[in-house]
Structures are given as C-alpha cells and as structure tokens.
C-alpha cells in the first residue's frame, strides 16, 4: 500500500505552494462570479460559472491523480489520451473497413504508456512515430478496401500522434531521472506544464474579452484576437517566471520555456479549431460543462507537452 500511495506532497513545499495557489485562484474566481451574479443579475455569468465549476473538478482530479501517486498518474493520463483519441476519431468519420486498424491504434495506447512508465526512452519515442506509423497502413491494406485508404492512413496516424504521442509526454515527465538538487522532480515539471498551459488558455480568453479588437485568424477561430494572444503570452511568461522553482532551469531558460508553452498552446488550440470547422461542429462534445469535450480542454496540451518536454530534456537532462 505504501508503494501506491505515498504522500510526497506533504514532504515537498514547492508543490504544496502551487497547489495552494491553484485552489486560491479557484476560490477567488468562484467568489467573484458569485458576487457579480448577485450584484448584477442581468450579467451573463452562467458560462463563466460553469467553467469555474468544471475547473474545480478538473483541478481536484488532476491534483489527486498526480500528487498522491505517480502510478495512478500514468493510468489517469493514459485514460485522458484514450478519451481524447475517441473524441477526435469519432469526429473525423472513418470508414467501416477501418475498424480493425482503429482497434490497433487504441491498443497502442497502453503500450505507449507502459513504455513511458518503465522509462525506456528509446522505445517510447519511436513507438508511435515509427512503429505505429508503419503498422497501421499494413492493417488497412490487409483489409483490402482501397477507396479512401489514403485519407484513413493519414488521419488515423495523425489522430494517434496528437492525442496519444503528444499527451504521453506528460507521463514521461514523471519517468525522468532524478536530478541532484532538484526536489520537485517530474511532478513539479508536470504541474508547471499543465498549470501554465491552462492558465494561458484562461489568460488569452480574459485578455481577449477585455481588450480584443483585432482578429488573428477570423476564418478559423473568430474569438481569437491579437490582444488576447499577446496578453496571454506576456502573462503566462511572467507567471512562469515566478513558478520557476518547480523546474530545474535557470531564470532565462524558464522565461523561454514559459513563452514556448504559451505559444505552442495557442497553436494547438487553433489547429483543433480548424478541424472543428472542417467537420462542422462547435465543441468536440459535452463531457465538461461550459468547456465542451475533453479535446477542447487538452488541445493546447497536445502541442505544449511535447514542446515543453523536449526543451527541458535538452536543457536539463
């Protein structure tokens, strides 16, 4: 039992500070929207209230799964990948003859996360980009239905890359070797990544609502403005700088990596928006009230996780 649940959480002040900060922000947001709702009954705060409520649930789940036990974290992140994969592939409209290949793709999720769990970096980093890339077309070819096969090959592997390979970098953070003098370890890095990516989404949304005038790419996402984008970049970089104690990086490296999280998160967001435009849906689902589907929440992470991981891996490991 001790092996599964050890409360490293209480032994590590750095992580504890950030957890307290997260709950502080949530309490502040809930109180704020509650008061605004009471004072100005006409103000439309329902969406913001729903979003905050969902943030509570997500924060508690995430903190519960990562802080208490790393083993549970691998399973939880793998499940997150699975749900995201399911949402995305269901949207893309595959042929009935693709069912076996899709089954293989789903089967690769536990393998990928097992490789991350045992920390076999070489196998982990090539499994989806090389092995599955070569195997999935084979399974499709064996089925023999060639009409539309190119699209199936391309979109199936792309879905796997985005929702499984990208997201699994979150799990590999936990398998990184311990560095001397850096006590927060993989959990600290994971907390840093997720917190900054999500705060960047919130900051972009907030700055966009407050000052947004000039649209960046109106054809893809009409709500994205230059003001929101730049405001998000700056606030996220500043917040990242102050949370640098969660990483083993120097000050300048932390600024760079925070900037890259904000930037790649934005890219992930608009890439997913463009797909939703293509298939003609507004949200990817109704799984999380106020947010849409799981994909709407982790689209930025699918981009920021690999970007963050590989920069940190290069700089510090």
């Amino acid at each position, binding site marked *: 039992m001790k092996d599964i649940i050890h409360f490293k959480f209480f032994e590590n002040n750095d992580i504890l500070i950030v957890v307290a900060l997260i709950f502080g922000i949530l309490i502040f947001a809930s109180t704020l929207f509650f008061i605004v709702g009471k004072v100005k009954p006409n103000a439309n705060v329902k969406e913001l209230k729903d979003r905050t409520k969902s943030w509570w649930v997500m924060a508690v789940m995430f903190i519960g799964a990562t802080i208490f036990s790393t083993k549970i974290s691998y399973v939880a992140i793998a499940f997150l990948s699975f749900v995201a994969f*399911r949402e995305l592939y269901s949207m893309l409209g595959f042929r*009935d003859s693709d069912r076996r290949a899709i089954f293989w793709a789903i089967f690769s999720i536990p393998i990928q996360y097992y490789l991350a769990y045992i920390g076999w970096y070489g196998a982990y980093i090539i499994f989806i980009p090389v092995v599955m890339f070569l195997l999935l077309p084979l399974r499709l070819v064996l089925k023999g239905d060639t009409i539309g096969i190119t699209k199936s090959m391309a979109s199936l592997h792309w879905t796997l890359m985005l929702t499984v390979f990208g997201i699994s970098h979150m799990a590999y953070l936990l398998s990184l070797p311990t560095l001397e003098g850096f006590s927060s370890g993989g959990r600290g890095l994971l907390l840093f990544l997720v917190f900054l990516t999500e705060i960047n989404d919130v900051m972009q949304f907030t700055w966009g609502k407050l000052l947004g005038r000039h649209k960046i790419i109106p054809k893809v996402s009409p709500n994205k403005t230059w003001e929101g984008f730049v405001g998000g970049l700056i606030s996220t970089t500043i917040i990242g700088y102050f949370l640098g104690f969660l990483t083993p990086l120097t000050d300048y490296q932390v600024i760079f990596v925070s900037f890259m999280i904000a930037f790649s998160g934005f890219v992930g967001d608009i890439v997913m928006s463009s797909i939703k435009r293509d298939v003609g849906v507004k949200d990817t689902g*109704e799984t999380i009230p106020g947010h849409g589907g799981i994909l709407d929440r982790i689209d930025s992470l699918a981009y920021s996780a690999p970007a963050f991981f590989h920069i940190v891996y290069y700089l510090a490991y």
Partner: protein
Amino acid sequence: MQKIVLTVIYSFFVRWFLKLIIGVQFPKAKFLVKEKQFIIVANHNSHLDTMTLMASLPSKILHKVKPVAAADHFGKSGIQSKLSGFFINALLIPRKRDKENPENDPIHKMIKALDEGYSLILFPEGTRGEPEKEQPLKPGVALVLRERPHIKYVPAHMKGMGKAMPKGDNWILPHKSSLKYGEPTAITSAEVESILTQIEGDFRRLKEK
C-alpha cells in the same frame, strides 16, 4: 431476484462500461418514474441500443420494462430464450403476424405484456440495418398504440452506436455516441400512417437536437 440482477448489471456494469469505455453520453431517465406505463420507441442500429436504453432507466422501474426482440434471433433455442428473458428481460415476438392464432401473434403479445403492467422498448425500424442509416418504420408500434391509446410513447434517438458495434461485426469499438429522449407523447390519431409520421417527426427533431 431478477430485479437485483438487472439492477446490478444495467445500472452499474453496463452503465459505466458504456460511459467510460464506449463513450456513450446518456441521461438517467428519471422523468419515466412519473409515467405509470410507457412505450419507448427508438431507432435501431446496434446491439448496444438496448443496453444503453436499459442502462439509462432508473433502477426502480428497470424490471418493469421489457425490450421487444425478435424470437428467431434471441430465442433460437429454449435456453437462449430463457437467458434473454432473464438477463435482458426481453419480450420475444415472432416477426410475422398470425391472426388465426392470437397466442403467436406479435401485436397480441405486446398488448398482453402492457395489460400485465409492463412497459415496452420497441424498435419500429425492425432490424439494425446499415450503420447510421434510417429505415422506414414498421406498423406494429402504431397497431399497439392504437389499441391502448391511454399509454404514452417516449421517442428516443441514438447516434453513433452503429459505429461502435454495427450489424455483422461482433467487435465493439469505442466510439462517441449519444442517446436523447423526447417528451412522453400521446397519439393524436387512430390512423396507422399518421401515428408513424408523428413518430418519424419526433425522431427527426431529436436527431437535430
């Protein structure tokens, strides 16, 4: 005994399997507790349809609801029909009408079950057919509703289930799908044609919702 088994299977195992693994979004149909008796009328694409409808029923009324199934498919042998009767609570009916012999007539069997106090789940499209394609409705549902006009029907529409487990493939694949219920409705006419048109209209509205 059967009530407990059904509750454990559908309100727990099937329910969470569908929600977590397959990715079906469905509500708990609490509003059905208020209706004394009803006929759920749903579109049919997959074996998962019945599972989902049963999993969405409140456990209080679960054992009082019988999905109507084809005897030639679910009751090939005596044992199989016993199993379908116990674990799916199925009401097995023959596909063809038999007016000479009421004991063997599908319409008569359904009305009898209603008179015994059961509610029904009916798939008026008949077979599952091609995944995600609609088929014309068969008149059976209208014939039953016409005989017992005080019983309301509840339209239900499912999407994506035919992709998760289509006809002709026994592999279940996770696929995002959903079940939506409409309001309990009484029939407004005794004409078979207009009852069917009414139900088709309900399906269309739910599909767009």
